[in-house]
């Protein structure tokens, strides 16, 4: 029997980026807020100081910052006809754990989606006709437009101090930035990061091929920054231990470096770490959340009542809590009905490695940051005519190599033995003179009828709750997209002067063991119709109006960018709606 705690105005489930944003916004509005976080408290000088943060074995190989599969995991299958099995070691994505969430280990690549991404179904149908889209593709519009959330992209970028070069300032295209981006109301708060040699060379080659390269927008800061909350960040040192690592130098934007120092000083904020929410409680009508139940590290169960519940866990856990709490109709892929679990997506990543003459090219790949890089956006979204190509979607591509860490940075040309003296010699020969972007082609992943999340019929977690079952595979549209983009990318690497280019196309079936990105999206998507969306345009549950669901679980499909900028902008947008409208008159913000 759960012990009941005093009620709070708002209960936040998960203290990552969106949980921290909401906690700050709601405490600013005067609410008593408690945030409940499954993982431990984490802070820069105690948890990832520069004396020990740069430990590739501990963080990259042994996954120090991530959830332990023994704590909870997911089952996985490619096809509905298969039997899903539990994931026992993380591969394709890295579920974050602990205060700061994925905001601790992310690269800090801080992109905006294209204006057309938010009206994707309408846009593609108008340009190419409905029959151009694969019949089982279930993409839809978001219910918000780029223009509506532009001020909130801006809020997030100025919170983080994002470093970049504006390409479209209030409609004016600026040389050196991304000419395809939507209009931004202000320049980036800090100039773009300096680019190392190979990244610069990629930009030069791309320009010579007629593209418009620009520096990747980066939450690893080019210079010291004072954010609007009064919190300070330092300049990035290009240490090359960023993605998968916490930053010891206060130079990567994270909840720790941009929000939490102010949040923890507030008397109306309380955080409970090492506490896992097991369900959202509803009243007898099923239309109102009364709070949450959680289990602390000692195994004791607690009930935390609250007037408002903010679900801000990682994509799959948001969906899991909705399914386990009986909120919203579970998705049924056969009938094509229901919403919870629907339109689950990931990313379509591939890479090209270039081998250069070691006598002429010394790239020093260890000089890098998590979001370093020169990119082009000619092949993202609908920035090019898809008519001749027979697919939709796209992605940015670039030399975005984030490190030269020794365990994983061993690029060798095709045909090299996998081990032994010849392999060692090839590693030595190529370490300084190879270009290995890692996620060089960062493609979209659109939604399909048979890619979804539901509860596994067999496997359960340590509390006896069913695991979430992932059913996911690549469809021809994404594989065609990837083949096209990978070839274009390889052309640029070739033009840099590579003597040999190795392409690694993304191929089906979807491989759960091979890392792509942690950008799992969808499953509780936003939209305008309760039949095809779990939450409205303000991220408010259609079924339980005092529940708001943050994060990429709300993306109807995934675009060809990293999702954090967009999910953070949506969190600010939702917080604004809660503060300006909902709190004055709690109830549905959109009448379905």
């Amino acid at each position, binding site marked *: 029997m759960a012990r009941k705690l005093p009620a709070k105005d708002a209960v936040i489930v998960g203290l990552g980026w969106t949980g921290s944003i909401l906690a700050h916004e709601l405490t600013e509005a005067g609410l008593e807020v408690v945030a409940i976080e499954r993982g431990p408290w984490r802070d820069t*000088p105690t948890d990832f100081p*520069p004396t020990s943060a740069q430990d590739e074995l501990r963080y990259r190989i042994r996954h120090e910052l991530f959830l332990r599969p023994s704590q909870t995991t997911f089952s996985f299958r490619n096809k509905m006809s298969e039997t899903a099995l539990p994931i026992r070691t993380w591969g394709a994505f890295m579920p974050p754990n602990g205060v700061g969430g994925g905001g601790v280990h992310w690269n800090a690549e801080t992109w905006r989606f294209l204006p057309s991404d938010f009206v994707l179904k309408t846009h593609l149908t108008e340009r190419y006709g409905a029959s151009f889209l694969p019949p089982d593709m279930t993409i839809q519009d978001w219910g918000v437009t780029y223009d509506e959330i532009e001020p909130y992209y801006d809020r997030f970028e100025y919170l983080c101090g994002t470093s970049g070069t504006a390409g479209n300032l209030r409609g004016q295209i600026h040389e050196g930035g991304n000419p395809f981006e939507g209009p931004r109301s202000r320049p980036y708060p800090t100039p773009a990061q300096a680019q190392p040699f190979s990244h610069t060379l990629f930009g030069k080659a791309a320009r010579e091929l007629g593209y418009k390269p620009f520096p990747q927008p980066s939450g690893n800061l080019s210079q*010291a920054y004072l954010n609007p909350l*009064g919190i*300070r960040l330092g300049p990035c040192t290009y240490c090359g231990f960023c993605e998968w690592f916490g930053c010891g130098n206060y130079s990567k934007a994270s909840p720790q470096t941009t929000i939490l*120092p102010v949040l923890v*000083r507030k008397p109306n904020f309380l955080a409970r770490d090492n506490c896992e929410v097991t369900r959202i409680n509803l009243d007898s009508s099923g239309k109102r959340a009364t709070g949450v139940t959680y289990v602390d590290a000692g195994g004791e169960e607690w009930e935390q009542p609250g007037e408002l519940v903010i679900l801000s866990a990682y994509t799959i856990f948001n969906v899991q809590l909705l399914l386990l709490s009986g909120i919203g109709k579970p998705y049924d892929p056969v009938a094509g009905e229901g919403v919870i679990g629907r339109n689950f997506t990931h990313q379509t990543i591939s890479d090209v490695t270039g081998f250069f003459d070691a006598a002429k090219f010394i790239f020093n790949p260890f000089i890098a940051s998590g979001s370093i890089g020169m990119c082009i956006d000619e092949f993202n979204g609908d920035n090019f005519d898809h008519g001749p190509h027979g697919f939709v979607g796209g992605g940015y591509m670039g030399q975005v190599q984030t490190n030269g860490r020794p365990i994983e940075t061993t690029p060798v040309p095709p045909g090299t033995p996998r081990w032994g003296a010849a392999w060692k010699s090839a590693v030595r020969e190529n370490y300084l003179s190879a270009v290995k972007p890692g996620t060089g082609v960062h493609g979209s992943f659109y939604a399909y009828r048979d890619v979804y999340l539901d509860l596994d019929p067999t496997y359960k977690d340590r509390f006896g709750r069913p695991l979430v079952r992932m059913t996911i595979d690549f469809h021809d549209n994404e594989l065609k997209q990837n083949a096209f983009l990978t070839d274009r990318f390889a052309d640029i690497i070739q033009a840099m002067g590579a003597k040999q280019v190795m392409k690694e196309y993304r191929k089906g079936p979807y491989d759960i063991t091979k890392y792509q990105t942690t950008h799992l999206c969808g499953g509780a998507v936003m939209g305008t119709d309760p039949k095809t969306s779990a939450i409205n345009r303000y991220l408010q549950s259609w079924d339980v109006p005092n529940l708001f669901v943050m994060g990429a679980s709300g993306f109807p499909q995934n675009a060809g960018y990293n999702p954090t900028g967009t999910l953070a902008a949506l969190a600010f947008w939702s917080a604004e709606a809660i503060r300006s409208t909902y709190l004055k008159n709690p109830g549905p913000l959109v009448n379905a």
Partner: protein
Amino acid sequence: MLRALAITIGALVILALAVVAIGVGVRSLMTPVVDGIHHRKGQDFALIERGRYLTAVADCASCHTIPGEGRPFAGGRRIETPFGFVAAANITPDAETGIGTWTDRQFDAAVRQGERRDGKPLYPAMPFPYYSRMSREDVLAIRAYLDTVAPVRNPVTSDLLPFPLSIRAGMLAWDALYFRPGEFRPDDTKSPEWNRGAYLVEGPGHCGACHTPKTWLGGDENAQKLRGSVIQGWFAPNITNDSTRGLGRWSPDDIVEYLRDGHNRLSAATGPMAEEIALSSSHMTDADLYAIAAYLKDQRGGSEATPPARSEDAAMAAGGAIYRDVCSACHTPDGRGVPYLFPALAASPSVRSRDPTTLIRIVLRGARSVATVREPTGPGMPAFGWQLDDSEVAAVLTYIRNSWGVAAAPVTAEEVHTARTRLAARSE
């Protein structure tokens, strides 16, 4: 250490006997105060607010509140002195275990004359030699504020010192040597701001309690006022206007920002100063902080320049390499750091100090800077004690103490070894 303690104890006993023998207690010679019945002035808002402010200025909470217990001023915190521990009293209005039944005269006598209600002397861990400079009105304003805090029943055994220091009569001898009672007298040749600063520094702010070098009996070396002293395993640096060791390169704005926000363009507060800022100076008005700055900027340091260690020395070469490897990412290769975030080592009084206690401690054990309303970031430096051995710590500290225009005595591996051993016995 033991020998020093034995000498101290012996000397105190002899002095005490001498003083008692002639039957004169210094404290009885002090300015007489009018006794009277204590009146609760609970409704006088202006007085209570003034008292609340002065309670912060005098940093009463630092000793009388145990951090994190949620019982303000209930006492019981163990105060480390060179001679042992003393527990701070309960100063809540609790009738039995606090000061609820004390008269104003008794309160004033304790604060300004170091005299307990039972007539016995207080140990100078209670900085009454400084509070003695305060006006009676200010002391009674503090009393009025303390009357408004929640009474907490918390009996405190204050006598934790070993025999014979536990004989409080010994303090009479100490008083005879070091206690110069009397209210602050303004210097008419100086500005009102300077005089206000002098009052705050010498009186309620009791800066010298940490920053003035001490005699072997723990009294202030008045000739060395505010020129730096070792306290509780830290070195409270020279805060005079001395440009070699002190604040000579700091502007009044730098001093004000440091005291108010815990950070300025050059430095960051950590250790006991972080606590002082959090509890005391961050709550002070800008006018008072500028007054303090004006007074400190008028204090002569008188330290002599040291010739810098030569760059070809082995320790300098090793230290430079270690610096570039493990320090420069934050403090930058040129030692300028990042303003308000990572201290500029060349401008830090702790780096320039004659005594490297604080530097060694921070490198071995790391440190967390204070977070304040205006500077909430509170960045921390990690511990390097597990990573660098004694000679490496010595080398890198010798390097930073002799680079970028700084010249200070080299640090030896033996000093680091001693500090490491002593720190091992410290919990915090």
